[in-house]
């Protein structure tokens, strides 16, 4: 009796243990299906949607959030979080504008200095988190206020404008081999981050740290150094995003990037990265980013005001996690 009863359950769990089963039941697959449905729908509604021109325009629009979502995925996989990316974004932009316009530096040097500021902001977050043991949520909450405050203080609420043409037209709206520069940068960032996360010792160690930090340390993983690296990476990418954004909109303001941290985290979490750490892929984050952009675009095409996308993204975020939770408990925990 007992054996007969148990059999179907065992089969089910075996199915989910196979490679095919595991990948079919992952959040990435669910997202992929939703995204394909959404894209097909949009393509039937508007024949210009699936053109290279339109698609690369969409990538440029999600560029800033996408660039910052790369390091954020790594950070959340280790069980941390970085709330300060929006503020690092703002501070880098303001520093760029200030050094170029008020301090009279050459723009090339100002760009490098702005990247250094981003690196230093990330380093500050990282060093407090690893050396003093400040929880990442608290540390980056404090620096969210601190970096934004510094941006306000440096700029004194003035904006810089009038950047040279090679910067605004060459970089901000420039093409390389027929595609916007942003498309290339985001492509390179995705490939590098994805390969590092999935195929290197460093990347695999991040999962171990997110699952059990103490065990990871006992296994000989340099936990502190790796953590420092990902927070510095986060600061650098926020800065890079800020420079390209400045080039595109041709001005800097101290409130730039306000609230970006939540957009970035939403995309990463929607992409299946567990907020508790130990789980997630760059591939999932890319899908999360695409789905959010497709939803925004779809609603605009349907004539719904832009604010409705915020409502829909919120609902999709919670639903995606719910469906994933349901599948995990239904098929995995047996």
């Amino acid at each position, binding site marked *: 009796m007992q054996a007969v009863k148990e059999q179907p359950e065992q089969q089910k769990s075996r199915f989910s243990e196979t490679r095919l089963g595991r990948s079919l039941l992952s959040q990435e697959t669910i997202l992929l299906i939703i995204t394909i449905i959404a894209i097909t729908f949009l393509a039937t509604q508007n024949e210009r949607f699936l053109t290279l021109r339109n698609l690369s325009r969409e990538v440029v629009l999600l560029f800033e959030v996408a660039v910052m979502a790369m390091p954020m995925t790594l950070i959340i996989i280790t069980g941390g979080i970085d709330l300060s990316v929006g503020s690092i974004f703002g501070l880098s932009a303001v520093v760029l504008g200030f050094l170029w316009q008020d301090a009279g530096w050459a723009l090339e040097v100002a760009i490098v200095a702005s990247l250094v500021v981003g690196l230093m902001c990330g380093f500050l977050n990282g060093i*407090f988190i690893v050396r*003093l*043991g*400040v*929880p990442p*949520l*608290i*540390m980056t*909450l*404090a*620096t*969210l*206020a*601190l*970096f*934004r*405050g*510094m941006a*306000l*203080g440096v*700029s*004194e*609420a003035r904006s810089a404008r009038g950047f040279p043409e090679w910067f605004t037209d060459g970089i901000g709206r420039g093409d390389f081999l027929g595609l916007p520069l942003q498309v290339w940068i985001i492509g390179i960032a995705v490939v590098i981050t994805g390969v590092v996360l999935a195929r290197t010792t460093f990347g695999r160690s991040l999962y171990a740290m997110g699952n059990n930090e103490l065990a990871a340390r006992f296994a000989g993983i340099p936990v502190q150094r790796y953590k420092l690296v990902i927070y510095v990476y986060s600061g650098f990418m926020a800065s890079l995003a800020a420079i390209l954004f400045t080039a595109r909109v041709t001005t800097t303001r101290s409130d730039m990037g*306000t*609230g970006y941290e*939540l957009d970035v*985290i*939403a995309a990463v*979490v929607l992409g299946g990265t567990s*907020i*508790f750490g130990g789980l997630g892929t760059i591939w999932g984050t890319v899908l999360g980013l695409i789905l959010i952009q497709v939803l925004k675009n779809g609603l605009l095409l349907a004539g719904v*005001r832009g*604010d*409705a*996308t*915020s*409502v*829909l*993204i*919120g*609902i999709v*975020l*919670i639903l995606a*996690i*719910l469906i994933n*939770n349901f599948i995990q408990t239904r098929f995995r925990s047996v």
Partner: protein
Amino acid sequence: MTAIPQKTSQALANRSIGSRLSGLLTQESVLALALVIISFAVTIVNPNFLAARNISDILSNSSYIAIAAIGMSLVIISGNIDISIGSLIGLLATIAGRLAIGAEAGGYPEIFAFIIPIVVGVASGALIGFFVAYLHVPAIVVSLGMLSVLKGGLILWTGGEWIYNLPEWFKFAQQRPLGIPAPVYLMISLTIIGAIWMKYSATGRAIYAVGGNREAARLSGISEKRIIMTVFMINGFMVSIAALLFATQFNAIQSTVPSGLELLVITSAVVGGVSILGGTGTVIGSTLGAVLVHVIPAAMIFASISDYWRQAVQGLLILFTVLVDLYRRNQQSYARRK
């Protein structure tokens, strides 16, 4: 043979002195001391700082943040977080304002303008609590989704218009019984009730237990799901009181989400010594934290420091208090291990 008990008793005596000292160094007393020192320093530079009118203004401005921080403290102590409260405050303030204008035009009693926002606030808290407790979605994800929904929904609904011509009876937060602003009374009484409830009621203790060790709490017979539901509903209630104060403090309401409120409230709780890891913290601490977070910018104005650097100093302050708190905790656990 006799030496051993002697040693032990000596060690015990030493430890009790040590623990008495570290007992004095609670986050609350550190905060109170910081408040006194800052006020004293600024008064030397500018004696007007200690004027009764200025003090009551600072307290009045910090009271809605302090009240929201009481709810947030409970949520954080239980091991969760709610980042949607800024949007909820915006929504509830708008509902209150529109209802007040409707009530003035006739149709329903004036009290509806206060009751309905509270009902909506508690219901919203219950919804988040349900997702967290029964559907096991992490609180940060639910409240992130909620933030998005409320923020977008509010703009869709109102288009971000201002609400003018609020009736006089509605402007509750501007009243000053006995010369003290009404919000200050609310802040003080809710803090006292909250502190006593958290310290002595079974539910209050259970919130600490759930936040400290969820599994141990469950095994000792605490219904963890019910506690989490309760915590989020209380948070919804506190947020609606805060929203009513927010809505009634000026003569007009902008029906959009005030930016950065949730961070200000979380900052107040954390500066007040509520550990983000759950299990420790007090309501009195969070209220002192909220006042401190408001005293700093006010003090900077009186000390003629450029307003542009206000937020940077606020960030440094958070960092500093967190470090002091960490240091204190390390000392305590070191003393305990000895």
